[in-house]
């Protein structure tokens, strides 16, 4: 996929859509969030041109930090070519006049909901997460006053209740996504709905991770080189998902896989959820057991379609 620059009609919007005062307010919240890793900073979330739940928090964070020289990548479920990712990427290409890319290594800002890219992140890169529910304790404690006190006094025993339930029901800690972590051994944090497969990538990461929750009006952050520990029990240590299958298209053995049902007979394939990682590998000559399948073709068509626009 080629890097492309889109020209906007100047004057229709302020740079990156939000007005400068709002961006300053959000930047102040971000600074505070970076200063206190894992702490949820309240901010005045604005009405955005997409509904809550479609990534308004992440969009506002991106809008506040994006500059003219940034290269922007947006993924949804790990893929660059899903509807939501395409429309948010085009939104910033238009209102911020920035270059966009699908390659992780080329991007300076990567906005995401469900995944951290497979390719290792570098110093200087910023991950922006769209967070639906910033409060990891909310499912167990509905009162905001109480959860704030728990954060203030570091009372995180309650979170283990969900792990206990999981072990009691499934014989292992089964939580797949939004797996709670302790940041810098101080604040309990929900890493938004990324699979726990990606949790270890947050630990001592080279990149800056910013989390924006639009509806809940919270921003939090994991600065570079910060300890991030996934909670577990002494006798049930944290582990990540793994697959027996390799990626059907690129043959990658150790990436996070999506299961795709192909027909009514139950035929299925496992493919890398990170579409950029997968196409990079295919370009480099790797091939999986179902290489050349019509879905392989399909993604190439979709990419061509977008190029043509």
């Amino acid at each position: 996929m080629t890097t492309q620059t889109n020209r906007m009609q100047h004057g229709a919007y302020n740079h990156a859509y939000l007005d400068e005062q709002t961006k300053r307010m959000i930047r102040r919240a971000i600074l505070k969030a970076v200063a206190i890793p894992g702490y949820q900073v309240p901010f005045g979330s604005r009405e955005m041109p997409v509904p809550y739940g479609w990534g308004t928090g992440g969009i506002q964070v991106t809008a506040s930090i994006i500059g003219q020289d940034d290269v922007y990548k947006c993924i949804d479920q790990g893929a660059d070519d899903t509807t939501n990712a395409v429309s948010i990427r085009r939104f910033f290409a238009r209102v911020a006049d920035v270059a966009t890319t699908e390659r992780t290594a080329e991007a300076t800002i990567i906005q995401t909901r469900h995944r951290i890219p497979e390719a290792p992140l570098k110093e200087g890169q910023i991950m922006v997460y769209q967070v639906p529910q910033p409060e990891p304790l909310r499912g167990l404690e509905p009162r905001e006053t109480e959860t704030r006190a728990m954060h203030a006094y570091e009372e995180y025993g309650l979170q283990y209740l969900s792990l206990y339930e999981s072990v009691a029901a499934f014989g292992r800690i089964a939580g797949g996504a939004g797996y709670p972590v302790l940041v810098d051994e101080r604040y309990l944090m929900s890493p938004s709905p990324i699979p726990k497969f990606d949790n270890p990538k947050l630990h001592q990461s080279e990149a800056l991770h910013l989390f924006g929750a639009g509806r809940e009006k919270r921003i939090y952050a994991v600065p570079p080189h910060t300890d991030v520990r996934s909670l577990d029990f002494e006798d049930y240590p944290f582990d990540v998902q793994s697959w027996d299958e390799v990626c059907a298209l690129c043959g990658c053995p150790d990436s996070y896989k999506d299961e795709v049902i192909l027909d009514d007979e139950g035929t299925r394939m496992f493919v890398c959820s990170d579409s950029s990682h997968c196409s990079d590998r295919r370009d480099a000559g790797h091939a999986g057991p179902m290489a050349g399948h019509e879905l392989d073709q399909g993604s190439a068509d979709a990419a061509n379609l977008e190029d043509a626009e």
Partner: protein
Amino acid sequence: MERADVQHQDDAALLAVRGLNKRFGNVVACHDINFELRRGEILGIVGESGSGKTTLLRCMAGQIDPDAGQVVFNSRRHGVKDIFALSEQDRRRISREEWGYVHQNPRDGLRMRVSGGANVAEPLMMNGQRHYGQMRELTLEWFEKVELDIARIDNKPRTFSGGMQQRLQIARNLIHSPSLVFMDEPTGGLDVSVQARLLDLMRLLVRDMGLAAIIVTHDIAVARLLADRLMVMKSGEVVEHGLTDQVLDDPQHGYTQLLVSSVLQI
């Protein structure tokens, strides 16, 4: 010197309430309450609805701030201290580590969205236990102690009957070996046969563990079975205070006489 200090602390009352006052607007809920509670002692507070029993209990448990007075607790971590002179963090820690609080309605004291076993194990996790196997073992032990079917350990509390929920709540409030348990009408809302078994069980557990307990009730029979001492409250004041048998067999105050004579006989 240190030994003498420890000795002194052991001699001190576990809980001392001094000059406690609480009003809600013009309504006096508690007026000048004074008493002491020693280790292993069970105090019953009786009185009619609206006499200030529950308000007093919630003040002692640090859940509401009194307008005046002290609640001095002899804690393992802080020694003899007025709980309202401690920071909120320390007060919450004492409440977590050294107290239990049994609500009248088990739904107030249980987390209805997690299993019975998780409810019982929660205080352990709150106090830093991070080993699932050990917690599970202790939880099973407690299920047996309160006569709950261990096969139902992973069921949600809503599938339990009222009496079972109350036993679940009692297990949850005793599993972390507190030194003081507050109970607010622990047998209210249960039918009499279930009540009798629950009382029997509570008497056994409390005596076995050498717990101190403060039991608020309007049921004189409950007080008679469980309490060593009795405090009778009316309109926010303590009108009579003494050994349970003494108060019930020879009530001095008019209101206590009325209360004792009002018990239904079969």
